[in-house]
């Protein structure tokens, strides 16, 4: 098999892969190849037909397809090569990418740098241990979204939604508008992980009840789903006997979390973080394997595509610098999750960064009138108050290079929420 060569190979042509490609090309890298598994670029945005994307980046509210199209158009303008219908089978630690496609068969490509931008996937029914029969009519919310918005058919007529994440809420509205009856949205936690805006505009606008501290305790139906049983749960999330409600329905949608899709990363020997299920990266988005970078939802699940684009531009710039050998080895300081903080990205920061470092994390609970404190030893790098921190909203802070002055790397950087 011939070995093809490219400077930068990007896996995935969703918002992350497109932004990374654009940034690398704008930095003057000519040989860039983006590989996409689907028939078209755009990633998950293609099926997110609702609006609310791009407020930070473009100062206007776009729908998902409109947001994607801007990056697709820009990538085409720059002459970036995007190959669709290509599935990557493996990435080796020395950056040989093996892929397969109907037109070109099996290929091996040696890349100067690889950017992982494969996105995430939904947590499936099997991960929930839900009781009941294995009947038809149970879909993840994103699968139903694809059916309705891209393939043009309705998965059912009477719907119950388990989980109140944003995709579930968005699908409650979409199914209602397209003619289905949504009977209930059921959330095991005492609060919804979705945005207030979606609770109001996707549930309340259509009088869809939200049952907090409830879960599905039975799924009934032989061939097709016939009904689900919903029970209240106690503070330890155990179902309370005697609280059962039966909903007759033909469809159950699951919106119970997203997991970064890192099988290829693992195959390349990339170290993963248990907190984010994504790669451990430095402030330049480089993974533990030199020359392999990661950005977007494959790195950690974002709430806003604007943040994905921003992170991926930085990954693209960093990969461009890497292939030009502009960076020399420098010492890294670890970033540690402190109280109230989960899954800080990046997990490592160069001792003397030359450009601002964006630090993102998810609060582990709801904190009101609290402060985020980023410190190393006795030195506070940043301290900022906020009226509210919630797990549903990723916190992001930019640290200027001067914040790191005087650090010698002897102590890690700790991020915590102080009440």
């Amino acid at each position, binding site marked *: 098999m011939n070995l093809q060569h490219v400077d930068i190979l990007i896996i995935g042509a969703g918002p992350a892969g497109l932004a990374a490609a654009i940034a690398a090309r704008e930095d003057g890298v000519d040989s860039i190849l983006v590989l996409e598994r689907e028939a078209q670029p755009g990633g998950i945005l293609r099926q997110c*037909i609702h609006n609310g994307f791009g407020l930070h980046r473009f100062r206007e509210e776009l729908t998902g397809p409109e947001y994607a199209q801007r990056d697709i158009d820009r990538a085409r303008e720059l002459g970036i090569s995007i190959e669709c219908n290509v599935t990557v089978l493996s990435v080796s630690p020395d950056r040989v990418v093996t892929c397969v496609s109907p037109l070109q068969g099996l290929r091996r490509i040696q890349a100067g740098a690889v950017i992982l931008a494969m996105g995430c996937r939904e947590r499936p029914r099997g991960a929930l241990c839900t009781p009941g029969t294995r009947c038809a009519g149970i879909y993840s919310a994103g699968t139903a979204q694809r059916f*309705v918005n*891209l393939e*043009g058919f309705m998965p059912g007529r009477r719907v119950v939604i388990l989980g109140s994440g944003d995709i579930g809420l968005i699908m409650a509205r979409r199914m209602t*508008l*397209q003619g289905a009856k949504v009977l209930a949205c059921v959330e095991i936690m005492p609060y919804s992980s979705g945005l207030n805006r979606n609770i109001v505009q996707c549930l309340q*606008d259509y009088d869809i009840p939200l049952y907090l501290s409830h879960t599905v305790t039975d799924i009934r139906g032989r061939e097709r789903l016939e009904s689900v049983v919903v029970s209240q749960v106690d503070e330890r999330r155990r179902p309370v006997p005697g609280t059962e409600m039966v909903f007759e329905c033909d469809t159950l949608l699951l919106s119970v979390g997203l997991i970064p899709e890192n099988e290829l990363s693992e195959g390349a020997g990339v170290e993963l973080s248990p907190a984010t299920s994504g790669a451990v990266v430095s402030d330049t988005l480089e993974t533990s394997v030199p020359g392999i970078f990661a950005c977007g939802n494959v790195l950690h699940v974002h709430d806003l595509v604007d943040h994905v684009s921003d992170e991926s531009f930085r990954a693209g710039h960093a990969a461009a610098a890497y292939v030009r050998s502009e960076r020399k080895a420098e010492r890294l300081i670890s970033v540690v999750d402190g109280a109230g903080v989960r899954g800080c990205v990046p997990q490592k920061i160069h001792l003397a960064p030359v450009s601002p470092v964006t630090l993102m994390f998810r609060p582990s609970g709801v904190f009101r009138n609290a402060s985020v404190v980023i410190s190393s030893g006795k030195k506070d790098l940043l301290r900022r108050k906020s*009226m509210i921190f*919630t797990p549903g*909203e990723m916190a992001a802070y930019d640290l200027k290079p001067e914040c790191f002055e005087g650090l010698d790397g002897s102590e890690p950087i700790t991020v915590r929420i102080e009440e």
Partner: protein
Amino acid sequence: MDQQITCINCPVGCRMTVTLSESGEIQSITGNTCPRGEKYARQECTLPLRMITAVIPVENSATPLSVKTASPVPKHLIPEVMAALKTVRISAPVALGQTVLPDVCGTGVPVIATRPLE
């Protein structure tokens, strides 16, 4: 008469109470922590507006066309807008931003395509 409104402007999600007179005039708004909340509550109690997005079938394409109202329209018109969209007959190719319905339900707002379709 009191109306309860959850603010959607930020994650704080202030729960506001709007007191209305019998004729429906706003007498007071409480519970908001910033001016954006008051503005939102005022709009929600007088004329709530929503962007509407949907997909419509395309005669010569298996892929449906995603569309949106070019600006927000009164919330109470959502069912009528969806019904109006059902009557639209359109064939590919469609350009992004192309008008598929010039003035939906007398709002003066067009419905436009949010993706290109070849």
